[in-house]
């Protein structure tokens, strides 16, 4: 192409082409070196539209500039993996010709600005990523981080986010069956909203986001394109606004009703085999969907934005290319099928416009009413985003925190102090019952829910009966802050443990990396170490990573959030009749603890909630022990040896036991002697009272079996190499715990009240008003 054929404004518009100044380039988040690369790729200066396209595609979100080299170190292959990273969602084989597609994504910044719409559109985006693989979404999970609930802002954000996820998922008819909710001042001004979606598909219907077949029509489907969410916000809005108004909303509004229509129509189009490829117009909208689809096929795409249905008059090509209006998709129809595609879409009352064709020249060519306004070779644009390997250095502040003397917090003055810590932890928003949240979500629509929120992992029945799917999300920002590699390992291991508690074998992982700016050496250190830890754990546990999402620059006023890798894991339970609940089931059952308790209180919720301390090294994660525990739990469930199993995590052994007593349908008191729980072989190291009661040593689980069933259970554990010991018995109205010369007894009803009222009490004043 020569300069002469380029008309930036396109025919019939009045826009002037602004000069591409260094400032303009910088405002687009491109470095001078990156700009040089663009000049080399194009062999000329870019137009403003082209600059916008490069800027979006080479952003962290689309181009993974800073994270790609790190992500490459993660294991991505395994016998079940059908589709690894790089597609709209990962897919695994769950047997009998069925697959499970799943992915997690963040919507942190939009939710910080407008929690209701931000969370709603976050749910909408990840749903589209899954159904564009040909999968019917069967579940959503929301992994949430907020500041302390003592702050009105955090309560407002929690209220809005929960209503946003709920209203969207409920309306589309996808049950939200799990998630996490953590409160810590580190997230005060930058909440994290990650949503995972899981779908099922007949594997023969798996479809990818590819644009192949020269001449095939490229169609834009769904909502009209507006000016919402246009990238490059500040600059672009002012300079390019033809009307000169400042009325360009950045906030995207979700329309779950249209989403539901898109979902049904897309699945019908795929089932009828009318499509070559399909992709959500997500981040960077039309630009990323068109160029990524072409890149995967090694083809080109030629579109005319003049044909794109728009919501507002006077939109420029720049705006149309970069708009992030919701509920839109790009599809490439099979030859001769365009008419039938239209029929299906019309049946669902959806708009479709053919905006271009697939070509074979490898170019992304954009016209406006016939006149070329952008012309970029696809492969360098999509695949040659410059990547950076940086130097990471640990923040000395973190080094110091880790080394802090925790002596003052290791012991309790008397039994009353232990009881008080127990109640404080049950009332801590990060531990307390999440019922207030998940009862605002439809958890039973689609009639697949075998176990909804409130257990260790959600369980959903699969068409590949009698198999069931288990899934959970996990991640501990505090651990990762204090020791990133351990945090990365722990996120994976806790998710695996959560799944294995139900009897399911962990299968694969998606992840969302929520970090601060990678340009800070201390953040880059966190990122690289956390990814290293995740990779180690994934390899050890045999759970390859099939996809994920990176959200960097989560900071305000120079203060990054805790580095928070969130792992979404799916696993398979071979026989749903063998599923294991987490709560105690019957009086008389024996209580066992599997896994070693060490003298570890660093990074614990106990230190944070009871002493306001974020310090010490987080509990070590021994990968061999993690793997052995998972093997043992899966075997124990398959053989029907356990009545309940609950992961021991935040709040340690005491909290895990009390949760087993109060988190089920009925209350079950118990008595337990913590001193009996397994210790380090040799048992030389003394254990402080705080570590015994509330320490968060990893790879521990509270199990029950029917009276007399303990021998067989212990034998199974021994075979798997898992230390296990009987600590007590279920029964009576009270929770009676003793250990380290302390004793606490409280009625299960009273503890349940604390646990259940903690969130509603704090959220009482939130109005729950619309929008």
């Amino acid at each position, binding site marked *: 192409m020569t300069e002469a054929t380029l008309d930036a404004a396109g025919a019939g518009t009045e826009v002037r082409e602004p000069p591409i100044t260094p400032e303009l380039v910088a405002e687009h988040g491109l470095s001078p070196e990156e700009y040089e690369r663009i000049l080399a790729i194009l062999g000329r200066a870019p137009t403003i539209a082209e600059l916008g396209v490069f800027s979006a595609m080479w952003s962290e979100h689309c181009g993974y500039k800073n994270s790609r080299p790190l992500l490459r170190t993660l294991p991505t292959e395994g016998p079940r993996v059908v589709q690894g990273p790089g597609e709209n969602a990962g897919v695994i084989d769950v047997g009998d010709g069925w697959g499970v597609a799943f992915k997690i994504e963040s919507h942190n910044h939009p939710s910080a600005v407008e929690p209701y719409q931000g969370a709603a559109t976050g749910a909408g985006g990840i749903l589209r990523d899954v159904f564009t693989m040909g999968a019917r979404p069967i579940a959503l999970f929301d992994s949430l981080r907020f500041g302390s609930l003592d702050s009105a802002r955090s309560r407002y954000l929690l209220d809005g986010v929960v209503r946003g996820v709920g209203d969207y998922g409920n309306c589309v008819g996808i049950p939200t069956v799990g998630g996490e909710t953590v409160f810590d001042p580190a997230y005060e001004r930058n909440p994290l909203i990650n949503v995972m979606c899981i779908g099922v598909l007949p594997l023969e219907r798996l479809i990818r986001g590819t644009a192949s077949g020269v001449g095939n029509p490229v169609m834009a489907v769904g909502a009209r394109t507006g000016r919402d969410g246009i990238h490059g916000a500040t600059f672009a809005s002012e300079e390019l606004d033809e009307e000169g108004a400042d009325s360009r909303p950045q*906030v995207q509004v979700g329309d779950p009703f249209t989403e539901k229509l898109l979902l049904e129509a897309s699945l019908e189009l795929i089932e009828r085999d009318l499509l070559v490829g399909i992709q959500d117009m997500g981040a960077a909208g039309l630009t990323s969907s068109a160029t990524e689809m072409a890149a995967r096929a090694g083809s080109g795409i030629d579109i005319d934005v003049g044909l794109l249905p728009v919501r507002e008059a006077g939109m420029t090509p720049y705006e149309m290319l970069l708009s992030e209006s919701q509920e839109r998709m790009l599809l490439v129809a099979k030859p001769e099928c365009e008419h039938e595609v239209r029929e299906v879409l019309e049946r669902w*009352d959806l708009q479709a416009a053919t905006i271009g064709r697939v070509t074979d020249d490898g170019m992304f060519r954009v016209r406006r009413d016939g006149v070329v306004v952008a012309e970029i070779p696809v492969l360098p644009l999509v695949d040659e985003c410059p990547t950076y390997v940086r130097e990471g250095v640990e923040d000395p502040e973190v080094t110091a925190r880790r080394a802090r003397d925790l002596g003052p917090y290791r012991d309790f003055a008397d039994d009353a102090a232990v009881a008080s810590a127990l109640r404080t932890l049950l009332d801590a928003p990060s531990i307390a019952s999440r019922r207030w949240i998940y009862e605002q979500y439809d958890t039973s629509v689609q009639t697949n829910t075998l176990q909804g929120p409130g257990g260790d992992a959600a369980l959903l029945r699969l068409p590949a009966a009698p198999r069931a799917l288990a899934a959970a999300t996990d991640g501990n920002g505090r651990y990762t802050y204090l020791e990133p590699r351990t945090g990365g390992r722990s996120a994976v291991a806790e998710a695996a443990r959560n799944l294995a508690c139900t009897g399911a074998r962990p299968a694969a992982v998606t992840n969302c990396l929520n970090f601060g700016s990678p340009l800070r050496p201390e953040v880059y250190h966190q990122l690289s170490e956390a990814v290293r830890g995740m990779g180690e754990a994934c390899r050890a546990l045999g759970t390859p990573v099939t996809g994920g999402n990176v959200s960097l620059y989560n900071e305000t006023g120079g203060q990054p959030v805790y580095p928070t890798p969130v792992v979404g894991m799916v696993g398979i339970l071979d026989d749903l009749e063998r599923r294991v609940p987490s709560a105690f089931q019957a009086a008389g059952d024996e209580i066992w603890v599997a896994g070693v308790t060490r003298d570890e209180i660093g990074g614990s919720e106990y230190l944070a909630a009871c002493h306001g301390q974020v310090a010490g090294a987080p509990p070590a994660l021994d990968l061999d022990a993690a793997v052995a525990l998972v093997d043992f739990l899966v075997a124990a469930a398959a053989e029907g040896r356990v009545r309940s199993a609950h992961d021991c995590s935040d709040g340690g052994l005491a909290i895990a036991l009390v949760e087993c007593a109060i988190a089920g349908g009925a209350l079950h008191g118990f008595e337990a002697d913590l001193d009996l729980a397994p210790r380090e072989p040799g048992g030389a190291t003394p254990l402080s009272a705080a570590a015994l009661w509330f320490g968060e040593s990893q790879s521990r689980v509270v199990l029950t079996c029917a009276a007399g069933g303990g021998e067989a259970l212990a034998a199974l554990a021994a075979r798997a190499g898992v230390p296990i010991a009987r600590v007590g018995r279920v029964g009576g109205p009270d929770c009676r715990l003793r250990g380290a010369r302390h004793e606490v007894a409280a009625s299960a009803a009273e503890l349940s009240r604390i646990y259940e009222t903690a969130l509603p009490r704090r959220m009482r004043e939130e109005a729950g008003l619309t*929008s």
Partner: protein
Amino acid sequence: MTETYSVDVRITPREGILDPEGQTIARALGNLGYEGVTAVRAGRLIELVIEAEDAEAARATVERMCEELIANPIIEDYAVRVREGVPG
């Protein structure tokens, strides 16, 4: 001394913000055979009765309420109208 004022707050989606509810109502009216409807916007209406020194004070107070609670200025516009007395 204070007077009683009736204050209406009309809350509508901001210009350029998607209004799926308005669009859906517009389509439904079309399906019912109504012609000539060129636009529909769906908003909210909050009616307050408030005691204030004078009409200006009433307006100022309600505008603060809108910013703080009643409207969501990020995605909604609001308009306040003040009348004397209680609504008829």
